[in-house]
């Protein structure tokens, strides 16, 4: 099937060939990723919002600037084996790239991509997706979803796009009732393996209670070294920087790169910086995901993929931070909000 898709799409699969596990072009042979089935270190967002991308080129012609847009439509791509948390993350950041002004770079890639999901059967200790409203084997924001049921993969069609890529596929047979049962059992067992939990109930009420509690945030952020790895590897972090490069002949290009709210320079202005202090930057990260983004788009911008916990050099843990929030019974929260 992958070979069939390869004719139409650039097929990307989870791979560690470059040293870091990420989505890479399938070599046409290796299928080890089917057995490994663990989440990549670099999230698939990189296939829509690359770490660095050229926005346009420019050159000087007879003393006058000519802006050269990057060439047309991006190639059609198929991401195979994307986990539900990462697919959900793409669904979440779609909203900001569609909001008000279309972001052509992101959206044209998104349009040209098919997502083939793979149910996650061995979540990490650091995973907590079940607290964010879905399970590791749920078909969220994918075009088709695969679940390993022992000697076969059960395919769930989710979207029209997904139906399209299955049309005429060889070796696909109708699932039996037994297959369905096995899939349900696999889903249940995957759900049960996600042992880490956060309490998202009333979180929009509880977060404001500590917003102005500087001591709380200083303690929470004390060990953070502002390295930014949690942002760069977060599947829902989308902030970017824009920079120019120029050659001696006056031609050049504008690029955008992943940026990070953990860096003081991110918000620094000539005369002042609203988030010069580290505790403000850590607070921004937590609030953006759990309060500000939900206020704008009605969804928490975290999928519990656990990368920020696994990859942090100083073991900073967002689930610990969230667990320290005051319980704040609804009555109390309102009182405090009123008082402030």
């Amino acid at each position, binding site marked *: 099937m992958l070979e069939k898709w390869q004719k139409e799409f650039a097929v990307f699969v989870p791979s560690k060939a470059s040293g870091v596990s990420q989505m890479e072009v399938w070599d046409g042979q290796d299928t080890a990723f089917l057995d490994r089935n663990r989440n990549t270190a670099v999230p698939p967002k990189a296939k829509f919002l690359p770490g660095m991308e050229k926005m346009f080129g420019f050159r000087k012609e007879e003393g006058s*600037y000519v802006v050269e847009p990057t060439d047309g439509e991006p190639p059609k791509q198929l991401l195979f084996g994307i986990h539900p948390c990462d697919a959900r993350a793409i669904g979440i950041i779609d909203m900001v790239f569609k909001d008000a002004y279309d972001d052509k770079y992101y959206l044209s890639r998104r349009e040209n991509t098919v997502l083939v999901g793979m149910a996650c059967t061995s979540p990490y200790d650091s995973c907590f997706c079940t607290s964010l409203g879905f399970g590791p084997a749920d078909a969220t924001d994918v075009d088709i979803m695969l679940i390993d049921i022992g000697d076969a993969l059960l395919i769930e069609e989710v979207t029209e796009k997904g139906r399209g890529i299955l049309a005429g596929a060889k070796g696909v047979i109708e699932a039996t009732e037994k297959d369905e049962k096995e899939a349900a059992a696999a889903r249940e067992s995957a759900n049960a393996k996600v042992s880490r939990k956060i309490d998202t109930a009333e979180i929009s009420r509880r977060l*404001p209670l500590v917003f*102005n509690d500087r001591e709380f945030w200083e303690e929470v952020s004390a060990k953070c070294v502002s390295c930014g790895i949690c942002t760069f590897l977060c599947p829902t972090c*989308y902030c*970017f920087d824009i920079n120019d*490069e120029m050659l001696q002949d006056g031609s050049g290009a504008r690029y955008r790169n992943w940026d990070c709210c953990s860096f003081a320079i991110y918000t620094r202005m000539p*005369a002042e910086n609203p988030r010069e202090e580290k505790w403000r930057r850590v607070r921004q990260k937590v609030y953006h995901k759990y309060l500000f983004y939900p206020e*704008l788009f009605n969804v928490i911008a975290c999928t519990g993929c656990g990368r920020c916990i696994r990859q942090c050099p100083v073991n900073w843990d967002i689930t610990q931070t969230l667990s320290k929030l005051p319980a704040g019974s609804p009555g109390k929260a309102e009182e405090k909000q009123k008082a402030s």
Partner: protein
Amino acid sequence: MTISDISHRKRYLPEGNVYLPHIAVIEKIIYETPNVKTFHFNFKDEKLKEEFTFESGQFGEYSVLGIGEATFCISSSPTRRDNLECTVARVGKVTNALHRLGEGAEIGFRGPFGNSFPLDYMAGKNLVLVAGGIGLAPLRSLIWNALDNRAQYGSIDIIYGARTPGDLCFKYDLESWEKDSSVNMTTTVDREAPDWQGNVGFVPAITEKVAPSAKNAVAIVCGPPIMIRFTFPVLEKLGFTPAQMITTLEKRMKCGIGKCGRCNIGDIYVCRDGPVFSYEQIRNFSSDEY
């Protein structure tokens, strides 16, 4: 009609890929102060030159191609269509590069972005316009806009201050507003200076002295954050309600369209929801990072 309504008003929206800059030519450069220049520019594309509109208070992203982009308001008035103007203090990489450009050089422009001063809300009211330093740039767009539609407004009070006489921007405008009998103009500098016969004192203190009436008035205050922080309480003492006080906020920006992330104050994005806010809105922000 409250100020928050204006963000939904129909306005010129850049088409196509909003990240692509339009090339414009600098037609004239005015030296405002040793550190500030005003650039008069026009789009190269005739059709865009014809169709482009904006509103007082909106901003653009200006490029020196190869160096980068920076954010400034459009300091000219939409009522004067000969050219567009921006007024730039030399503070960073891009602004230094801009200052090195001469007349005839080309820049990139994206915009207009952001909301604008609530002209509908201000119509029929007395205007109290308070500015400090280069903060006069966004207000200047509004002032010429109001003067070109003079009949739509009541009295116009302008209070403008700078550190020294040499730091006053738009001296040519100040002169013509002083001559305009329909404008009550007050200029001040922070400290005594040789050959300066005008007012001496900080903008908030001078505002208190001028004591504009709050009745049927709206105050618009633009300048350094410290000036704004001290001017609002003075206006409150004079009877202005928070809804009657308007300002513009400044943040580091890159995209200008609410995507790149950095200009937020809580769930407010200054580029998308601002830069014009009433004090009523500001004091209700969930965050103090403004």
